[in-house]
């Protein structure tokens, strides 16, 4: 398919704009644009067709089953798109006076109250733009909290099953990283933990249930170890979809939690974003939260900037408001029955697990929570078909592949998260495909190794992409990479989560 720039013809345009009979002032020479940017020049019909064709070459939840582990690819209700486009939300300036934004402030305040109830903690800030920014904000809170107490703590501990964002956030916040292992049941290794926690430890970052899809059975002991050392516990809310209304991070002993609104509360993932990463904390961390805070004074709502100990701002204004509208609407559609969402997510995952564990290896043989991790190690060893090959072959059956090669402690990992919004028929069809693929691996492994067979492209050469780094259209001098030898070199790296 041609790039939009290759369809462009000088003189065409899609836009029409009001013209005023007013003089345009001259700009100083050095500041005036010296050449026009080569933006696409197409009339509206071809513009629409271009983006329609791109859409048709993209697979979303609306297209089909998308069991990308740890990403919680659930249905996105269409009414939320209508709501976010109400002019009172869509066309509201973030610097509008409080008297002119009471409805928006009330919505945010209500969402904060809901997230406080769901997390079992005390105070919420909606500001962080995504889960990873929630993590960073939480670590900044730790730093401010300990600085305020005059304590010097320089290390944060993460699990070896952690998302890459955890260690990356630790570095960005200026902390040293220490890793703790996983025991034979898939829980944190308590002996390893006890040996590593000391007076230099600022805290722990943990996902619970973990990225293995397992609830850490010793979480109370874990919390005790950190709290006894005066350290804090951070809850990575990536997997909150498993336990809403069932068990709360605050009750587990966590002091700071971020919630991924785009996972648990159905903000559409948008091809990579936007997300939302509100954080909820215990009272003693409140003074350090980002400004402004959204607070209620009687019947009025306002922004409170008077927080002298605040870490400051982590993004513009009060956060991704459109995301709040959708997530608030999603939660209000469930009401107290939100627990049902998690129950069905866990049932769907366990059903898939029960039906698949005969054909694929299960490294930790327990009931799972909302997702589980299988290993294709045996298929690879016996038939030369890797997790990547299984993933690519699933495309031929019309499914988006699961997350692969993550978590890192499971070789040839296939991380599967069906979510609660899938019907049993879809789960059964997916099981049939996975079982068929396991058989194919034994009988015709090349069917897997050469997959996919009917997507717009075959396997792409990722090594060439990284080496040549062609990251924009080159117009008249655009390179023709097809003239260079190409191999199906997909990097065996984490794809998903």
């Amino acid at each position, binding site marked *: 398919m041609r790039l939009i720039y290759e369809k462009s013809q000088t003189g065409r345009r899609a836009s029409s*704009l009001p013209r005023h009979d*007013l003089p345009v*002032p001259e*700009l100083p020479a050095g500041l005036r*644009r*010296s050449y026009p*940017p080569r*933006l696409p020049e197409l009339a509206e019909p071809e*513009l629409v067709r271009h983006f329609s*064709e791109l859409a048709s070459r*993209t697979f979303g939840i*609306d297209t089909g089953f998308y069991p990308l582990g740890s990403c919680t*690819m659930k249905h*996105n209700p269409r009414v939320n*798109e209508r709501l976010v486009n*109400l002019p*009172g*939300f869509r*066309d*509201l*300036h973030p*610097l509008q*006076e409080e008297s002119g*934004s*009471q409805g928006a402030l009330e919505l945010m305040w209500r969402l904060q109250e809901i997230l406080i109830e*769901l997390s079992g903690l005390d105070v919420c800030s909606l500001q962080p733009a995504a889960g990873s920014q929630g993590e*960073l904000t939480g670590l900044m809170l730790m*730093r401010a909290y300990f600085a305020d107490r005059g304590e010097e703590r320089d290390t944060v501990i993460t699990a070896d099953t952690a998302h*890459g*964002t955890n260690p*990356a956030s630790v570095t*960005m916040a200026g902390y040293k990283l220490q890793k703790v292992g996983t025991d034979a049941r898939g829980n944190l290794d308590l002996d390893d933990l006890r040996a590593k926690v000391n007076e230099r430890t600022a805290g722990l970052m943990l996902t619970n249930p973990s990225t293995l899809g397992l*609830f850490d059975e010793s979480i109370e002991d874990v919390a005790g170890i950190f709290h006894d050392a005066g350290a804090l516990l951070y809850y990575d809310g990536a997997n909150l979809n498993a336990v809403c209304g*069932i068990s709360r991070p605050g009750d587990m002993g966590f002091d700071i939690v971020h919630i991924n609104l785009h996972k648990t509360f159905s903000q559409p993932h948008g*091809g*990579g974003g*936007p997300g939302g990463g509100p954080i909820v904390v215990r009272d003693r961390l409140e003074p350090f939260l980002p400004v402004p805070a959204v607070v209620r004074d009687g019947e009025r709502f306002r922004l409170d900037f008077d927080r002298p100990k605040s870490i400051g*701002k*982590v993004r*513009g*204004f*009060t956060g991704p*408001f459109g995301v709040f509208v959708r997530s608030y609407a999603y939660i209000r559609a469930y009401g107290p029955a939100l627990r049902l*969402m998690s*129950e069905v997510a866990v*049932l769907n995952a366990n*059903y898939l697990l*029960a039906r698949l564990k005969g054909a694929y290896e299960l490294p930790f043989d327990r*009931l799972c929570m909302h997702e589980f991790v299988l290993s294709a190690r045996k298929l690879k060893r016996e038939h030369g078909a890797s997790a990547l090959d299984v993933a690519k072959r699933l*495309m031929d059956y019309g499914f988006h592949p699961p997350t692969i090669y993550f978590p890192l402690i499971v070789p040839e990992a296939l991380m599967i998260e069906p979510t609660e919004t899938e019907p049993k028929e879809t789960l059964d069809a997916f099981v049939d495909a996975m079982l068929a693929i396991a058989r194919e691996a034994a009988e015709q492994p090349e069917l897997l190794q050469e997959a996919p067979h009917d997507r*717009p492209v075959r396997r*792409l050469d*990722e090594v060439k*992409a990284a080496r*040549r780094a062609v990251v924009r*259209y080159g117009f008249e001098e655009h390179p023709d990479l097809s003239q260079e030898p*190409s191999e199906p070199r997909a990097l065996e*790296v984490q*794809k*998903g989560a």
Partner: protein
Amino acid sequence: MRFLSLTERDRAAMLEAVGVGSIDELFADIPESLRLGRELALEPALSEPELVAHLEELAGRNVHTGRELSFLGAGMYDHYVPAIVDAVLARGEFLTAYTPYQPEMSQGVLQAIFEYQTAICELTGMDVSNASGYDGTTVAADACSMARYATGRSKVALCETVNPQVRQVVKTYAPGFGLEVVEIPHRGGVTDAGDARSAAEDAACLIFQQPNFFGCLEPAPELASAATDAGALAVAHVDPVSLGVLEAPGRYGCALAIGEGQGAGNSLSFGGPHYGFLAARSSLIRRMPGRIIGETTDVNGERGYVLTLQTREQHIRREKATSNITTNQTLLALAGLVHLSWLGPQGLREVGESCMALVEYAKERLGLPLLFSEQTTFKEFAVRVGRNAEEVMQAAREQGVHPGYPLGRDYEGLEDALLVCVTEKRTPAEIDRLAEVLAACV
């Protein structure tokens, strides 16, 4: 529940397949002491019509740009968003996909972001762009981190004329990066190149904004040279809508061009979600944060697109990654691409020219003393209103006109100054109305 499909029969069959007698047994690993053991204290569920009514009531209490004639800008702008943007973003394939980890399933979104990267490079005159950052504030923090690694220096110089929110976010991030922040005071509404040169002396980067927060045009080429001469990276925080008429930062020596994308393709939405863009010289590509899409070929030599240079990123490099960013702002960046494609080079220039022409008309019609009368402006300008600007603003709002942003909120000594924004959506008649209302309020 309308988002769930399992029937009672399905549930029974599935529990049996799992080998448990009840849903509760699936949660056996959670210690009893950690179970909530009560219903969530949430308000009752709402049907779809009830939900719409409830949110319409909340939305109805907001004074949006359709209900009040607004000259409020200060970082978020009421530019026209064409219908084609709504149409493309409503496509479920774009809306409900996630990060294109599996390129064969995602060629459409990958190609779209490759096209977005190209558009950003064209606007800014840079070699490479990432696939988006959170917003115009966080990309500034990203630029500081890149500059720290590129130069080994541990200070950033920030012009006081940069949007206050951008400066606040940079200051929040800086301690974690091991960076100290120094701010350069303005002289008469813009930054003095000599001041910039001194501040950049041992700095990793100099960040200036063009047009700056006051709406004034900085002597951008001189500031970029001041930074470069001092061995610091020149970072321009630019308004994408201005780049049809204003010079590309790549043409005057900047190492990085960053900015808030909202004005190009995104509604105001009370401050988000929007997209931040980050573009750089090719020598900095391996220090860039976030997703980057690259071109390659498949086994048949067919052109295709993939996430590339992933060894920069958290899912591979973990604690050594250039950033922790994962979820970005792809859908909003896609809106940016659609909007810029709708405008084309000619449309973008016309929008810029309309803003400038209307601003000059407004300066003349308002007849108020300009705060920085020596400076050239783009789509915003500051006036002195003779008394507390907050009071003037409130009085004007009572007449149904939001006249702009009181600068005293961020700048000491400017309590009587109002920052007025005029986009291409405003008309001469609306500006006349502003003039009339302000004349009665000042």
